[in-house]
């Protein structure tokens, strides 16, 4: 089921309702199996029955294991049974990485605008406003500066909920400003990617974020400051064709789908089924494009360890 639902990477870029695994429980799941009725004849009236709050329970899309969202959260949104890494947002990553969840957010005052007056099924500006209203996010990337086991780190993190984490002008600009901050304060930089690719509603402007961010990365490189690129599920298109793959270290979460072209497009092109495990982190590691795969629970300590190694 997981593989089926993540097949159409491009669909996420439409900015339509996406199935966010954290907040949405699977409506089609047979709920009758959750509890076994011990005694016959329950006497509560239907009207008095308590509604289960939405999102209280969570089913793993990979192994169908059911946990409470609270338990899942304590396990950093990793399935306790099969180690499936749920998709999480910048809030959760910042909480995972920064000591006591303390961090300063940089340049959160820039927002996307519909400069091109792009209208597909909906005007772009309307999409932006709706998603902002729904998620409270201003765009698909947030920058946090905080301490990771007492070591300062600048983290740029994508939010997949915001038009599929798509790369637009704002992400490009924030990414560059985050690097400027790193250069100014001599800090290491980390980017957590989770994106379907470029934001089509920004057309060529979105494409030009590739050279824009790459150029800025070369300045970070000249300043001899490390850049760690963490790829999470999913990372596609323009991200993998630019800063996603340009880390001094490229690392990934287990089981993440990472690639240039989406699986659906490849399948339609070659007219063959794709091999199992194609475009997963494990596949990329095997083909030499990742330094290592890291479990979310070990991420913080590993990053800390790396910062010390770069420093020492």
């Amino acid at each position, binding site marked *: 089921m997981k593989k089926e639902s993540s097949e159409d990477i491009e669909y996420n870029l439409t900015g339509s309702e996406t199935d966010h695994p954290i907040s949405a429980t699977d409506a089609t799941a047979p709920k009758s199996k959750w509890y076994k009725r011990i005694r016959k004849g329950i006497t509560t009236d239907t009207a008095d029955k308590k509604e289960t709050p939405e999102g209280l329970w969570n089913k793993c899309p990979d192994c169908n294991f059911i946990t409470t969202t609270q338990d899942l959260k304590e396990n950093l949104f990793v399935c306790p049974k099969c180690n499936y890494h749920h998709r999480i947002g910048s809030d959760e990553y910042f909480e995972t990485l920064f000591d006591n969840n303390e961090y300063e957010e940089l340049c959160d005052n820039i927002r996307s605008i519909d400069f091109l007056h792009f209208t597909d099924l909906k005007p772009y500006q309307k999409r932006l406003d709706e998603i902002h209203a729904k998620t409270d996010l201003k765009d698909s990337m947030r920058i946090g500066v905080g301490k990771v086991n007492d070591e300062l780190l600048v983290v740029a993190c994508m939010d997949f909920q915001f038009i599929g984490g798509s790369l637009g002008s704002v992400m490009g600009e924030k990414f560059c400003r985050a690097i400027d901050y790193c250069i100014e304060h001599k800090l290491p930089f980390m980017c957590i990617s989770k994106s379907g690719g470029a934001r089509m509603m920004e057309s060529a402007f979105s494409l030009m974020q590739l050279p824009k961010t790459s*150029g800025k990365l070369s300045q970070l490189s000249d300043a001899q400051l490390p850049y760690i690129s963490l790829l999470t599920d999913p990372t596609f298109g323009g991200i*993998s064709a630019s800063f996603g793959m340009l880390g001094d270290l490229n690392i990934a979460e287990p089981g993440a789908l990472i690639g240039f072209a989406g699986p659906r497009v490849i399948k339609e092109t070659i007219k063959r089924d794709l091999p199992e495990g194609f475009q997963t982190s494990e596949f990329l590691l095997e083909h030499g494009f990742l330094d290592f795969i890291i479990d979310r629970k070990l991420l913080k300590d590993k990053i800390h360890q790396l910062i010390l190694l770069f420093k020492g």
Partner: protein
Amino acid sequence: MPQYPNRQFLDFEQPIKVLFEEIEKLKQTAEKSKIDLSDSIVKLENAIIEKRREITISLTPWQRVQLSRHPDRPYTLKYINNMCTNFVELHGDRNIKDDKAIVGGFAQLGGETVMIIGQQKGANTKLRQIRNFGMANPEGYRKALRLMKLAEKFNKPIVTLVDTPGAYPGLEAEERGQGEAIARNIYEMIRLKVPVIVVIIGEGASGGALGIGVGDKVLMMENTWYTVISPESCSSILWRSWDKKEEAAKQLKLTADDMKGFGLVDEIVPEPLGGAHWDYDEAANILKDYIINSIAEFKSSDHQTRINNRIEKFGKMGFWEEMLTEETETK
């Protein structure tokens, strides 16, 4: 270039085809009846030129896309042969294989040695397959980078000709790191110590184009397009239908005029009336002058200035709204 009756016509070029057919008929009549019809033929020939002009004036964005893919349109090697002398093609990425969707090598252009690289499409069915429709694999981008580094080593300017419907979305391409190959090229190109002139000569599709498309100056030929996705794919993703390609082409603002207007490309190179497929020599001659002038423009500055300017130029691209910090605080 192909002459009538081997010429191919797009749907909106059909009126021209009709004129050609009339000329052909007149010629046959003249031959049979031995009557001099050259006046009428000249009239029709002028009518063809007039028609080419008419078409050019009212081209829609989608028609520009069609022209960029015209089956008779000149491809990279045509331009190289028409613009340059002493071209020596160099093959292979020194790693996997030689990707035939990208060609490149040293050549003389306007009296000096340049490295010229571009995506190559095939002119017939068999060649199209060999060239993979101008869709490069990672080894193609790595070959291009190898050649660019070679040019840098010997301090020769680089010219790239972009004409691709996209980087190839294949299984092996992913295995060999299509994303990484393009990312590496973009990163390295922005730091190249020699002048880099980029020309969109046909299709400029997304990352596949950018993989050889970062330079001091980016030129766009008149009837080309350059954006983040092809209008067809954009239609299928955003409109959930393949039928909105015209609308997508319009919305994407992908023409040379749009791109120049946005400051995302630097100059537009005019084409022969009605498109480059009407006259290969003329198209190549116009382009040659633009490239020579562009190289001259950047040759004199030192390489660090050029690199900084490149980073700065691309760094400015984008649009956003910036709220004053005080305002956000009061909110």
